[in-house]
């Protein structure tokens, strides 16, 4: 590794002793000796295994649930349905006042995606839980489903989630998050060229090697220790407290060791139901996703569609940018209203454009609920924006890197959402990239600076 100290040399004290030096990781000795304790490495005598009965339909009304045969199955200790959950309808972002509560811990009256949790079976062995789960009878009335965001937004589309009342998240700004800056139509009218393109992506599964799960042990005194691989410890504790209607001081969460997360372990899915199982049985409970559940049930990155329309001058300046972004939340919100909002903040890209119009929608469909993953709301948008930048450069016959230098934001530039740019380093990154990739640009670009204007 090489540290280029010539960049921004006058902006810092040159006393870096740690950065740029290899330092041993504190967790590695545990990893290489097999001593690191992951949540599933906790084993308790008498531990029960939880298996979930899941919806085989994308969208259906539940007429009835019959658990009587499952309850009689040898080895079964408890069977849980929606009415066992103290506060069954929840949404994780309620902690930061983003509602409405729109998701059920266990399905109540309706399922909205294939794989939705309906009944939880707790048994002495995994096998007994699986066998009993197969004996749970759920009578479904299949409903029409919608899987495409644009179809979902059309009038007359099947309503995915009654807690919203329409197939999009209603922000305080209306049906979408909006950014308005300058006059985008005037910008297009005055542009030498206009290019509109649409980009779309499919859901992406994080596929961590360690599947989602938790082990819960009753401590006595109505207190429960939950060993979990959540990436969102306090979020999970607080939401579990709401769902279980238990004060937080009754819940002791132990985590910190995550066998791969990548954003896929931030949803509060396994802990509340496992704690409830431990509470109602008085026994330790293990709820661990199978590999198939991890791939099919856990939240993926959202599918997205991005429509970008740009007005560009032949000298390389982008004069107008209009972006419409769609985030497929699947059947429930989880983190997606936030992801779509992040997109609105991000979409002009790291470029200074005088006229910007952005709309981003969080759309509900009967697909697996999506959630966080490495820069969600941004990563797919960046892919779209940078492909669009290459296309624009080609359109006006300009080198794609020089085209980006012309439009790069610099300190003091006003961003579309009216936050002045501070601490920009894009110019310097591109200068270094130009050298490293042996992709030369004109000398005037190599002389530019992010914070010394006029250069």
């Amino acid at each position: 590794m090489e540290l280029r100290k010539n960049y921004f040399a006058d902006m810092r004290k040159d006393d870096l002793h740690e950065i740029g030096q290899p330092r041993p990781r504190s967790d590695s000795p545990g990893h290489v000796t097999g001593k690191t304790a992951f949540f599933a490495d906790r084993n308790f005598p008498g531990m029960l295994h939880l298996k979930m009965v899941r919806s085989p339909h994308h969208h259906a009304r539940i007429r009835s649930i019959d658990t009587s045969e499952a309850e009689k199955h040898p080895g079964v200790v408890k069977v849980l349905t929606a009415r066992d959950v103290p506060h069954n309808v929840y949404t994780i972002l309620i902690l930061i006042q983003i509602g409405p509560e729109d998701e059920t811990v266990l399905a109540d009256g309706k399922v909205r995606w294939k794989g939705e949790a309906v009944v939880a079976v707790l048994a002495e062995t995994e096998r007994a839980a699986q066998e009993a789960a197969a004996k749970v009878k759920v009578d479904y009335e299949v409903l029409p489903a919608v899987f495409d965001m644009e179809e979902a937004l059309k009038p007359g589309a099947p309503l995915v989630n009654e807690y919203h009342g329409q197939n999009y998240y209603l922000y305080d700004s209306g049906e979408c998050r909006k950014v308005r800056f300058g006059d985008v139509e005037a910008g297009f009218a005055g542009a030498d060229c206009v290019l509109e393109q649409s980009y779309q992506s499919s859901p992406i599964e994080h596929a961590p090697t360690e599947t989602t799960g938790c082990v819960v042990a009753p401590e006595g005194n109505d207190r429960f220790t939950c060993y979990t691989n959540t990436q969102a410890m306090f979020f999970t504790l607080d939401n579990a407290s709401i769902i279980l209607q238990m004060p937080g001081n009754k819940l002791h969460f132990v985590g910190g060791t995550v066998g791969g997360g990548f954003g896929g372990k931030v949803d509060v899915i396994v802990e509340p139901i496992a704690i409830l199982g431990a509470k109602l049985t008085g026994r330790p409970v293990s709820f661990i996703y199978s590999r198939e559940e991890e791939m099919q049930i856990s939240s993926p990155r959202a599918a997205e569609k991005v429509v970008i329309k740009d007005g560009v001058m032949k000298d390389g300046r982008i004069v107008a940018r209009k972006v419409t972004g769609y985030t497929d939340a699947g059947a429930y919100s989880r983190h997606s209203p936030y992801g779509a909002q992040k997109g609105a903040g991000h979409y002009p890209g790291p470029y200074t454009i005088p006229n910007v119009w952005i709309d981003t929608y969080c759309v509900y469909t009967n697909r697996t609920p999506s959630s966080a993953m490495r820069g969600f709301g941004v990563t797919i948008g960046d892919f779209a924006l940078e492909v669009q930048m290459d296309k624009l450069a080609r359109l006006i016959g300009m080198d794609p890197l020089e085209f980006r230098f012309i439009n790069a934001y610099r300190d003091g530039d006003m961003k579309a959402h009216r936050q002045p740019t501070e601490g920009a380093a894009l110019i310097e990154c591109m200068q270094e990239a130009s050298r490293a990739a042996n992709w030369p640009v004109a000398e005037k670009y190599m002389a530019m600076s992010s914070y010394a204007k006029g250069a």
Partner: protein
Amino acid sequence: MALALQTFATVKDANVALKAQGTCYFGGGTLVVRAANEGDISVSGLIRSTDPALSAIEVTGGKVRIGASVTMAAIARHPDLGTLARAARAVGGPAIRNMATVGGNLFAPAPYGDFAVALLALGATVSTDDGETPIETFLANRDGSRAIVTSVGFTVPKAGDFRFLKVSRVKPKGISVLSIAAMLEQAGDGTVSSARIALGCMADRPIRAKAAEKALLGRRLDQDGIAPALAAAGEGTSPITDPIASAWYRAEVLPVHLRRLLLS
């Protein structure tokens, strides 16, 4: 019912035990234990036999007989089976190859079962206590097969006559997009005198590409010579769709990979 394993010294006794409901033969475990782990509760009794004949490889006078319990790793390192090493190494990673057996591979649903594709091209026979069956017939009827496979037999191919290719998206290896095995004999003038081509992932189990085989007869293995075979490669196939590839994709790339194999 909990899972339980029963072990028998002879295949005969194990076959009797397999008549009970809910039983399944346990070879290397890579199919049946996997299914049980994933929640398949249809099997409660695993039956195995420790008969040493099941683990033997016999090579006599150009004929080979491989016991059904022989692992992919054992085939890959056997000095007389060098022509098959590539196909044996195509299965799984090193740990899987130490466990997965020849017998089990005959039952592996697509996209698995790459070695069975090789056996199909070799024109192998499959033995049980009831006798020998041509592999093509065996594969077609495998869903109802209850008798324990004891061995597979075939003539060891001459170097150069047997070709094998597995296509996967992950390097050095992953699950098959498709696999192709070909047994090709050429006359003195270089024209193909006999051809047997087997395809993996182009149906739910290995199948022959009979139209392509026919189109190769009397032709040379060059661009022009193989063109009719490539055009006919997809005839009679019904490729699987799975997370690795769609049926459409598999059908599109089959001629590309068949060309590479035939010209290699």
